[in-house]
């Protein structure tokens, strides 16, 4: 019942990843270490190191490279290009967004054929960008946004949205504001900013584990969940473009986590503005140097 893709080298029919024999996570995996720090030595409200670069793809109109800890995303923007006249006329532009995840990006090798999760990711990024781009400026046109996730170690939706906005800025597409993505997690009612993939997976199975520990039919009541939010910090005093949340918690816990994530978005926004300003200065200087030659 294997889907043999005739266009790719498929290799043998069935292969077993080594993680069946040995989990990539440490044994006796706890969410927090004894000193209260997380497994990657961060404090609960500390985000991973970030890196932003623009104009890294020579062939694209605009491009960007985002690193959130070890999560790496590359984005290329092409267009705006005219939609063929056979399609229904639309007075505002359209965004086509496609996310591709490299097969080696996660612990277990992913099939190169996009699965539902990747398609959902593409749709979520597209919707975030549609809120931000001034589409009325591009009638009958289509803007293509392509993302490649080179490594997925958590927070991939936030990284994709941020990378897409940066690349759109690099491509001189008019937008209301830059959309910045960030994620938060709750574990046992505590908020943790910018969860890594190990933490996200730990929380996803937390409810099950807690129910097993309690035993005798008692329902686990601790709050666990994950949230990703994409924010436009300066447009109309801050507008949320996308929000995806899973888990269960009280409304006030949700509000606290959301506020923490929005604060993270604002901090990242400040860094991004600086990156874009530096890029403009650089290209200004290089064009002046060319003119004087």
């Amino acid at each position: 019942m294997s889907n043999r893709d005739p266009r790719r080298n498929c290799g043998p029919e069935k292969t077993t990843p080594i993680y069946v024999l040995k989990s990539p996570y440490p044994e006796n995996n706890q969410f927090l270490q004894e000193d209260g720090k997380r497994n990657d030595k961060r404090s609960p409200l500390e985000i991973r190191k970030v890196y932003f670069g623009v104009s890294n793809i020579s062939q694209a109109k605009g491009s960007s490279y985002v690193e959130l800890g070890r999560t790496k995303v590359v984005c290329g923007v092409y267009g705006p290009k005219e939609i063929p006249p056979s399609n229904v006329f639309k007075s505002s532009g359209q965004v086509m967004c496609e996310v591709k995840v490299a097969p080696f990006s996660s612990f277990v090798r992913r099939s190169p054929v996009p699965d539902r999760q990747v398609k959902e990711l593409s749709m979520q990024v597209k919707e975030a960008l549609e809120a931000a781009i001034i589409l009325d400026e591009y009638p009958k046109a289509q803007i293509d946004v392509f993302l490649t996730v080179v490594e997925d170690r958590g927070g991939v939706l936030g990284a994709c949205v941020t990378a897409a906005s940066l690349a759109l800025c690099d491509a001189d597409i008019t937008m209301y504001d830059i959309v910045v993505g960030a994620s938060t997690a709750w574990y046992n009612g505590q908020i943790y900013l910018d969860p890594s993939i190990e933490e996200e997976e730990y929380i996803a199975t937390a409810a099950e584990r807690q129910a097993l520990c309690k035993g005798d039919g008692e329902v686990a009541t601790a709050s666990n969940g994950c949230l990703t939010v994409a924010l436009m910090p300066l447009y109309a005093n801050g507008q949320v473009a996308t929000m995806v949340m899973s888990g269960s918690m009280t409304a006030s816990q949700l509000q606290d986590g959301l506020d923490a994530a929005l604060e993270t978005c604002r901090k990242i926004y400040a860094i991004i503005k600086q990156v874009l300003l530096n890029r403009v200065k650089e290209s200004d200087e290089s064009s002046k140097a060319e003119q004087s030659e």
Partner: protein
Amino acid sequence: MNTSQVSIGNTTVVCGVKAEMCRPSLENPTKGFIVPNVELYSCCSPNFKAGPPGEKAISTSQFLSNLLDNNEVVNYEDLCIVPNKWVWCLYCDVVCLDFDGNLVDASLLSVLAALLHLSLPLVSMNPDTGSLTLSAQHIQKLAIKNRPVSTTFGIYSSEIQLLDPSASDESECGGEVVVVLLENGDVCCTNKTGRRQVSGERIRQFITTAQRRLPVLQRTLQEALDQHAMNST
């Protein structure tokens, strides 16, 4: 898991090697598999449309597969865990981040670099139960027999050929000659594609030029491996 990144000019590719275990084929019960695949997403260039892999990706994947199949690079018997029962299958996925021509050279270098610093854990099988245990402490580097390096020439006309063509060069050229050399300068493989013609004398000149370019690429590769070894200790 192992990755390598190669940039030739603007062309940037990343290769990731994932090792998985599988049953060997009946014809070759002691040989493992190496499965190279080149992915050209629409992200890297406006020439590639969304959807299943196009001609360029398929032909580059097939080229890498042919090169690795002829037993010159890796001894497939080294990939055997338990004869007739379990072997390693190395998936080498090459993802192009920026396409500016000459995909073949960059892809081959990246697959080679990733395989060169690949270490496989020791897997042993209990002969009574057939169950496997993995020992992450005992890791063994994969033995690479040869380091083939390719050089690509774009054929614009019978008088003009371009070494290491960029994307704009490739769009003008009507053909391509790829020369693959081993470390000692021996020719491992040549490939001529496209509609333009080229004389035999010209191909001999290509081989000579490729032999001159060979030490530069090998040195760069070795420096990168040494740097990586230094950083990881």
